[in-house]
């Protein structure tokens, strides 16, 4: 962070012509995108279009083949990248929550700050309890993930990422595994975050949510960004035929 010449006026996340293949299958075929600090960006698109792959590349969970991704001016596609540094800046929440089942909600949240950042326990615990309150899970501190509903688990997962005080949050279809009623709890949590000015990149199927929260929407298909724009124009004035078809199916 220190060495970076990045200033808040430049994009927080900047992808340029990202290519990525799995074996013979080219999943990303030149994706570019700039996300400024405080932006909330939604990525939508049909299944298999490479949304998850893209978001995982930002967090260096998948290496990219060519192009560049910069987070706060730091190149992710750098073999000498300090992945831990990157991951302190970028938080990620998965569709399957992936909580640690043998730890309570509170312990899940406290683990990374204590083990990775080596922060003192008291401090971390205070912050963790605040986060629990923020995601509206008071009283569930000592429950194990198996004892929580899907929505509650997902909120713990969000709190767990936030505990690392990231600058950017990535969300990959965080509500896809939830039943309709609990979807809302999670979305409210994310909206609160966005309103507080957190930089967010979301992959979602929730058009209603995208429309409400995002300030920019990207539509991907087969590894390329087909169309993008602010929600108002995007939903009503889509030009690309593939986008139109997709929107017609879900609208």
């Amino acid at each position, binding site marked *: 962070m220190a060495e970076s010449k990045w200033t808040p006026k430049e994009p927080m996340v900047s992808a340029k012509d990202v290519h990525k293949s799995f074996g013979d299958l080219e999943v990303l075929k030149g994706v570019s995108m700039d996300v400024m600090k405080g932006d909330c960006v939604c990525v939508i698109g049909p299944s298999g279009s490479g949304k998850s792959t893209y978001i995982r590349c930002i967090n260096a969970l998948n290496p990219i083949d060519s192009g560049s991704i910069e987070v706060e001016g730091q190149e992710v596609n750098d073999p000498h990248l300090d*992945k831990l540094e990157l991951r302190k800046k970028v938080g990620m929440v998965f569709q399957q929550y992936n*909580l640690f089942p043998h730890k309570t909600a509170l312990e899940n949240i406290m683990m990374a700050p204590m083990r*990775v950042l080596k922060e003192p326990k008291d401090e971390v615990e205070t912050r963790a309890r605040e986060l629990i309150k923020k995601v509206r899970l008071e009283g569930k501190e000592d429950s194990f993930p198996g004892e929580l509903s899907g929505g509650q688990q997902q909120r713990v997962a969000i709190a767990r990422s936030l505990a690392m005080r990231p600058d950017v949050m990535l969300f990959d279809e965080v509500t896809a595994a939830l039943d309709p009623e609990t979807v809302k709890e999670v979305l409210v949590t994310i909206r609160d975050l966005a309103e507080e000015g957190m930089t967010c990149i979301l992959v979602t199927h929730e058009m209603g949510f995208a429309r409400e929260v995002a300030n920019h929407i990207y539509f991907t298909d087969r590894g390329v960004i087909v169309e993008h724009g602010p929600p108002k124009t995007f939903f009503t004035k889509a030009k690309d035929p593939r986008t139109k078809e997709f929107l017609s199916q879900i609208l």
Partner: protein
Amino acid sequence: MLQSIQDYFRQLAETNPSWNFIYIYDPVQTARVLDGLWMTIILSVVCVILSVVIGVVGALLQGSPRRWVRSVVQGYIQFFRNTPPLIQLLFFYFALGQFTPSYSPDGWLEVPIISNVGWAIISLSFFAGAFNVEIFRSGIEAVPESTKEASESLGMNRLQTYIYVVLPLAFRVSLPSLNNNLVNLVKTTTQAIVIAVPELLYQLVSIYNDYSTAQNACMVLMFLVYIVLVGILVLGMNRWERGMRIPGYGA
């Protein structure tokens, strides 16, 4: 009280020669049985502990990025799982035993540093350890990639991920199989008789070779002792398993 019990069994042996519980009323035989029992318990306890240690270390080594390390572990497992433990015991004692250093108290006798009891412990521990490696490995494999990814995306490094997330979960998955294997190990300790380890079976066989009328009584004792030993082990493991249970999972 004790006297009358002894008298009863002495009487029983008189009237009913095939039920000679000699180890109850003859102190010399009682001592032999107790020695044997003690040896069996030592063998079981030490082998159980060692084999678990071998299993954990082996499973870690098997995940090593170095090819030759993996091959060595693989070779070890193959050797021990494909040969009857009986032959392994003979092999260790007679073949490897010749190459171990020894000291000589009286000019002739070469007391090896590793006695036959030592070889039995080594051989049996490595035998059961070979199975334990596989058990722990499949436990580690059962921890989903996504859980590991989650901990990585929180900034934990490989080692931290292993210690705090993978191993605690893998251990729980492995417990039932481990349980089976350890029970099996306790049962296998009887085979140490082939290298003349004075465990319970050895002592009982010696007793009924000396007093042939005691054969039935010896078998009864043998049966009871092993049922109790295995019972204790199973109870202990079950309690442990319950203690390790994660609330909210499993029936």
